[in-house]
């Protein structure tokens, strides 16, 4: 009975592994802090007084990021979906119209206006989406923020500068994340195996039902990890809003650091808050992912390009 099973041993080693990781991380960070600020020490009075202001600044970061991310989800899904579908050539539309006319015994072919408008609309959205994604991914977020801000500044110079900066920041972040999310959704939808759709259609499901009951449930599992990365990336990237004067967490920390000469205290708080936001989020999503994982199936990955946003 005292015999340890392989399962027990595995669990023990996992515990040792986690403990080691914690010790090394805490020890490493602790030593680094000591090496850098040991001579001065952290001013705990300052931290005690001001930490709530930092939390408020973090609230701004979180707020902007979340709004941009949610609107970006709509933009990203729309463009991702249309960009994942194939074009229908004009020739095929005309041929189909002729077939219908022949079958009904008409001697002239009615012009297939609705078909052409619908497929033409999808074609334009697809091409526009491609261009949009190319621009968003091909230019720095920094440039996008400054660009939107400059345009607004020239177009509506009478606006309150803070309101103007907020709108500009929100537009730039939303457009940016919308572009990246469109790639994530496109890759996710295209990764669902074509045989799955075919089997659904063979059962008599409509295109819409196949999307709703087969493609989406599988695609959602595929896009959750890259979307989480996108949210965390966006949260960090929102610190770039400092260039147009929006004081979110990083911007606020920087001003505090230099106004009161509390560099270490400020960065300790900023770092701690970012970690407090991102680490639990990653954990929660990892849990959701485990819950949604399909038994027996290995981990499937979407190869969505998630280019890191270069800081300025």
């Amino acid at each position, binding site marked *: 009975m005292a015999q340890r099973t392989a399962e027990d041993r595995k669990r023990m080693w996992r515990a040792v592994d986690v403990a080691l990781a914690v010790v090394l991380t805490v020890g490493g960070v602790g030593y680094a802090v000591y090496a850098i600020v040991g001579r001065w020490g952290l001013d705990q009075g300052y931290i005690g007084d001001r930490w709530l202001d930092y939390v408020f600044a973090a609230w701004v970061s979180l707020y902007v990021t979340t709004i941009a991310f949610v609107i970006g989800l709509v933009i990203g899904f729309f463009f991702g979906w249309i960009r994942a579908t194939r074009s229908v050539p004009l020739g095929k539309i005309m041929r*189909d119209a002729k*077939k*219908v006319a022949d*079958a*009904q015994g008409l001697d002239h072919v009615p012009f297939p206006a609705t078909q052409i408008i619908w497929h033409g609309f999808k074609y334009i959205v697809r091409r526009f989406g491609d261009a949009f994604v190319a621009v968003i991914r091909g230019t720095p977020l920094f440039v996008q923020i400054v660009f939107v801000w400059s345009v607004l500044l020239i177009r509506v110079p009478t606006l309150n500068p803070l309101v103007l900066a907020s709108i500009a920041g929100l537009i730039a972040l939303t457009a940016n994340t919308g572009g990246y999310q469109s790639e994530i959704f496109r890759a996710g939808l295209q990764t669902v*195996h074509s*045989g*799955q759709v*075919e*089997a*659904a*259609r*063979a*059962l*008599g*499901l*409509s295109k819409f*039902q196949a999307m709703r*009951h*087969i493609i989406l*449930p*599988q695609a959602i*599992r595929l896009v959750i990890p890259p979307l989480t990365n996108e949210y965390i990336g966006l949260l960090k990237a929102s610190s770039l809003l400092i260039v147009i004067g929006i004081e979110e967490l990083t911007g606020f920390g920087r001003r505090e650091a230099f106004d009161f000469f509390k560099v270490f205290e400020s960065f300790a708080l900023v770092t701690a808050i970012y970690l407090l936001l991102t680490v639990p989020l990653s954990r929660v999503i990892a849990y959701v992912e485990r819950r949604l994982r*399909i*038994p*027996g*199936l290995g981990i499937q990955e979407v190869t969505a390009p998630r280019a890191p946003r270069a800081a300025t």
Partner: protein
Amino acid sequence: MIRVVGVHKTFGPLHVLRGITLEVPKGEALVIIGPSGSGKSTLLRCINLLVEPDAGSVFIDGVHVNRPEVSAEWVRQQVGMVFQSFNLFTHLTALQNVMLGPVRVKGMEQEAARVKAKQLLARVGLAAKAEAYPAELSGGQQQRVAIARALAMDPKAMLFDEPTSALDPEYIREVLDVMTALAREGMTMIVVTHEMGFASNVASRIVFIDAGIVLEEGHPNQIFGNPQQERTRTFVSKILR
């Protein structure tokens, strides 16, 4: 039950079906053989309109189905299809796979669909695997669930596209047994397969397709024992080894 008349299909420059005509009376099983790339899959997919024929007609139970005013969804409910690669929905259990069609397409109540799906899984010998996901099943088990899923729509006929050629040899028997039982119960079926034992036992006729045309057709004994065409003879001798 199923009648195909002069069906043509091209993919770009490729003329895959070049005037196929064949007929399957109610309750009979037709086996199609032919070299890879000869258009067998394309023919089956023309019958349930997964592929739209360029010319020619497909009749199911007397209804001319490849006409614009006939809904493809309706046609596909009349004819079940089983694929070489199973194509079970990976995010659903075996039971949910079988229930999906009746619930979503036919609007059947969940409970009624569940009872029906359980009966069908029992019929293919998988009552115990109802809660398993496809990735937890062997190839043979997956293909039997796929057959149950197609049967759940109460089709008038069934199409099988090389249902055993993706299977490890030890699982082929169990799938063929299910198909044989189905044929004995009077299901109208078209089966693309190179399993000669199954073809001889179950098929009322064999059709040999080569390069998009029906080169020869006849009783299994004739096609396997005494083929008239030179190409049929070489092909049959190859698959009989």
